[in-house]
């Protein structure tokens, strides 16, 4: 085994290896369409009270439960396909008690903000008898969530490539 203690080229080798690891964090072909389906189901939630004859709570659950199930399935599939588990845990505790934010946290916040804003807007539009406008908002929200999801994956790759703060 070569001795590298006096060879700073080891750092360059580590950078190359981290790049290789980051390149593995590319989603398989089914991941992004799957994410789009999850968000489409989520943003269909506000329509549930109009579309189903059952009480609102039951009909909303009928949409949200499959969406959450597909979401977990996608995350499991991504971890299995890439061999890397890198999220979506928001905070990590270091040994010295400090906290730092996970990579892609801004994208994560954007995902949350867009989802709440879009659902609220959709509900208001439906209440005012504008279902077509609500569908338009839902479509825009799905597109925005997809862009944020891709930004999140890019941030994770960037973090893997940069060494996650470990020099």
């Amino acid at each position, binding site marked *: *085994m*070569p*001795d*590298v*203690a*006096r060879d*700073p080229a*080891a*750092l*360059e*080798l*580590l*950078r190359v*290896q*981290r*790049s*290789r*690891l*980051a390149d*593995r964090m590319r989603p398989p072909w089914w991941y992004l369409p799957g994410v789009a389906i999850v968000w489409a189901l989520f943003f269909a939630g506000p329509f549930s009270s109009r579309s189903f004859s059952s009480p609102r709570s039951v009909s909303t659950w009928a949409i949200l439960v499959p969406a959450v199930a597909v979401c977990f399935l996608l995350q499991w599939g991504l971890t*299995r396909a*890439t*061999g*890397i*588990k*890198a*999220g979506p*845990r928001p905070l990590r505790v*270091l*040994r010295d008690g400090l906290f730092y934010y996970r*990579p892609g946290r801004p994208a994560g916040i954007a995902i949350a903000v867009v989802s709440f804003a879009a659902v609220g807007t959709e509900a208001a539009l439906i209440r005012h008898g504008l279902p077509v406008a609500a569908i338009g908002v839902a479509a825009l929200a799905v597109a925005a969530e997809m862009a944020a999801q891709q930004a999140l994956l*890019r941030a*994770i*790759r*960037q*973090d*893997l*490539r*940069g*060494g*996650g*703060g*470990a*020099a």
Partner: protein
Amino acid sequence: MTAKPDPLIHPITRLSICGLLAAGADWVEFAALRDAAGISDSVLSKQSRVLEDARYVEVRKGAVGRRPRTWFRLTAEGRQALEGHLAWLAQLEEALSASTPGRPVLVPRSE
């Protein structure tokens, strides 16, 4: 953090394993780690065992169907040792760069 060499992660294979596990992922699977480090199955098994015995690396074994899956994670102790070792290597690199002005500065590639 003190910049000091760690004899355990001094060999390049162990440095690679720890460096890759410290790169931001929570857990990394055996094949992903092997491919990224560019080493063989047997070398990874042997070196990861040494790191596990030193409590630098945590190992979780499972299976998907009949296929065994092994996952690795760097412990807090391993992270601290690695950071000290990398800081020490960075100091060496800096000293070398200073002594040879024409030498290019190494910067990680960004997207």
